[in-house]
């Protein structure tokens, strides 16, 4: 822009005083340092493993594991491979985390809301619950539930009997297992029909409300449909589902579905511990919606439950969800404490037994950490997407 043919440039600084030069140099040094550390760790590990004759590589995954696992969601027996034990551990971890997240969320929301109850007793009780369980180590709580509480349940022969079909003992909770006979397929079909019908009904109800303003009780009807239609099919088809009712035989109950006490103790501890944090998050989320919002909604004539659904909850969720997900992450990581009471999660089965049988610590620990890393990174990714989606628009 200047008419001067040779534009004035700010003079060049002495290289050692130039922040850009310094910054590049500094970063190069940092890269070099990290690379050197990484390289020497790698080199040490390789040479240590070599000199100690430790096997390396992932070939072990195809070898037979040879040990039993008490609980697995996928088909497993001791003739299967280590790769399979990895999957068993992983699914068990996901199971306990998933259930833990579900229960902790339910309990946390209830306690968080109870904390705001107008009933003094309920509010103080919720506070006491939070202050007690939040301040005691999780591991201790796991031991407590496992050894001091579930451990004192009666043995299978003296099991507590729930209606003659389900049993509670120190071997866990055993419930009947459905056995599908010919015609049972119709129940499934009925369920699918009910689901489709519900979806159609909800859409229709929404359309009709938009068109005529009338509000249709779609939710209760849909629930009735989803429960009712399969039940109808069940009776019409002549009750094609049998129940494998657990029976005492030999040492323990046979048949039925068993939830082992390790799972129970772990779930109890994870739920009760994490719920204290969730409760506080929920409370502060709800409190963050100012009373003016509720008043304005009430003044518009909205009945209290609609105020909650249309005004309070949508706003509270924005505040609640980010810290909530980090609690979910914590819960997932904490589920690794399963190893202390022998629940066969990933750390226990894979980083414990499998590692011990194969001795390939580096590979196995790396795989285990990678699993947790992957879980954690995918959750943060989802979180970022969510945050972007719900960010309030400001000036």
């Amino acid at each position, binding site marked *: 822009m200047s008419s001067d043919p040779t534009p004035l440039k700010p003079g060049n600084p002495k290289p050692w005083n130039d922040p850009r030069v310094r910054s590049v140099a500094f970063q190069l040094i940092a890269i070099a340092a990290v690379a050197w550390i990484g390289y020497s760790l790698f080199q040490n590990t390789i040479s*240590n*493993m070599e*000199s*100690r*004759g*430790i*096997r390396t590589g992932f070939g072990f995954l195809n070898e037979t594991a*040879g*040990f*039993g*696992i*008490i609980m697995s969601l996928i088909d497993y027996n*001791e*003739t299967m491979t280590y790769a399979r034990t990895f999957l068993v551990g992983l699914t068990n971890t996901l199971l306990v985390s998933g259930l833990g997240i579900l229960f902790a969320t339910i309990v946390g929301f209830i306690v968080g809301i109870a904390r705001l109850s107008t009933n003094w007793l309920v509010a103080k009780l919720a506070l006491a619950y939070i202050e007690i369980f939040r301040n005691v180590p999780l591991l201790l709580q796991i031991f407590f539930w496992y*050894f001091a509480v579930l*451990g*004192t349940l009666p*043995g299978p022969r003296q099991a507590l009997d729930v209606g003659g079909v389900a049993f509670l003992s*120190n*071997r866990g909770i055993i419930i009947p297992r459905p056995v599908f006979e010919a015609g049972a397929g119709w129940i499934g079909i009925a369920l699918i029909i009910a689901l489709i019908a519900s979806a159609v009904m909800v859409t229709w109800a929404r359309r009709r409300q938009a068109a005529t303003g009338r509000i249709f009780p779609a939710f209760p009807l849909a629930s009735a449909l989803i429960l009712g239609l399969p039940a109808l099919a069940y009776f019409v088809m002549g009750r094609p589902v049998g129940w494998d009712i657990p029976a005492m*035989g*030999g*040492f*323990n109950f*046979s048949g039925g579905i068993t939830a082992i*006490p*390790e799972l129970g103790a772990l779930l109890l501890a994870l739920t009760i511990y994490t719920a204290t944090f969730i409760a506080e998050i929920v409370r502060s989320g709800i409190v963050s919606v100012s009373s003016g919002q509720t008043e304005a909604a009430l003044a518009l004539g909205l009945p209290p439950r609609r105020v909650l659904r249309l005004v309070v909850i949508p706003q509270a969720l924005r505040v609640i969800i980010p810290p909530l997900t980090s609690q979910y992450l914590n819960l997932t990581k904490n589920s690794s404490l399963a*190893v*202390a*009471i*022998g629940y*066969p999660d990933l750390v*226990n089965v894979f*980083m*414990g*037994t499998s*590692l*011990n*049988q*194969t*001795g390939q*610590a580096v590979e196995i620990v790396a795989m285990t950490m990678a699993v947790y890393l992957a879980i954690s990174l995918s959750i943060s990714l989802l979180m970022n997407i969510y945050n972007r989606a719900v960010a309030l628009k400001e000036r």
Partner: protein
Amino acid sequence: ATLQDVQDAGELRCGVSNGLPGFSQPDSSGNWAGIDVDTCRAVAAAVLGDADAVEFIPLTAAERFTALQSGEIDVLSRNTTWTTTRDASLGLNFTGTNYYDGQGFLIKTALGVDSAYDLDGAAVCTQAGTTTELNLADFFRANDMEYEAVVFDTSEASAQGFDNNRCDVLTSDTSQLAALKTQLTDPDSAEILPEIISKEPLGPVVRQGDDEWFNVVKWVLFGQINAEEYGITSENVEEMESSDNPSVQRIVGTSGNMGEILGLDDDFMVDVISQVGNYGEMFERNVGPDTPLGLNRGNNALWTDGGILYAPPFR
């Protein structure tokens, strides 16, 4: 080399079980006792001249091999079974057997079961990462029986699980079963089934590739067994130094250069025997009939007494 490292450090780092009566167990002031512990102490006596120069590092079964591989410990003496896989693929060497064991079952008398072949459908408590876990699977599969493996990370926890009725049967090496039985709330409520389902030679382990150290650990144990064979005890070892039995002389170092060729002092066995004792003393003190475990020598008797304890000659 490990021997050099240990001598430089002035201390032997020895991996032991974190609580198994008779084998390795700390008392409330942190003093460790047991046959595995004594094995470590013997090595320390031989190498450093001081049986107390040991740092005991309690390990769970799952941690033990990694700890040894990584160099965290110098020797692993933790009722570890000698198997092909472990010897060959873990990069470890078993130096011998300090206890010949076999896997058995401990069961509540109230259940009225008297044979391991009647255990179909039982819940079995066991310890993670052991051969026990594998033998158990083999046994039940071979006999076409179902079982439920309740796996704990320490033997103490598995005993507690058994005590709490979490499982019907506790499986482990019979010596351990005897030890664990003493820890039950009511030790008389359980009994050990007669069947032994596996061979479990237990012994110290070292890293592969360090033959010098391998030899030292191996020959300390052999030395203790030989000492028993020749009647050398902690009481009489001083007198034995003037013995004219050449076999005895070689053990106490008054003739030959056994110590030197191993890289130790020639009288290293004197330190071992005077401070720890011979194999028999070690056995009696920790697991023998006069201890809470009350085990007989059985297989662990010398070959001369009808057992299978047979150490190569000190020559």
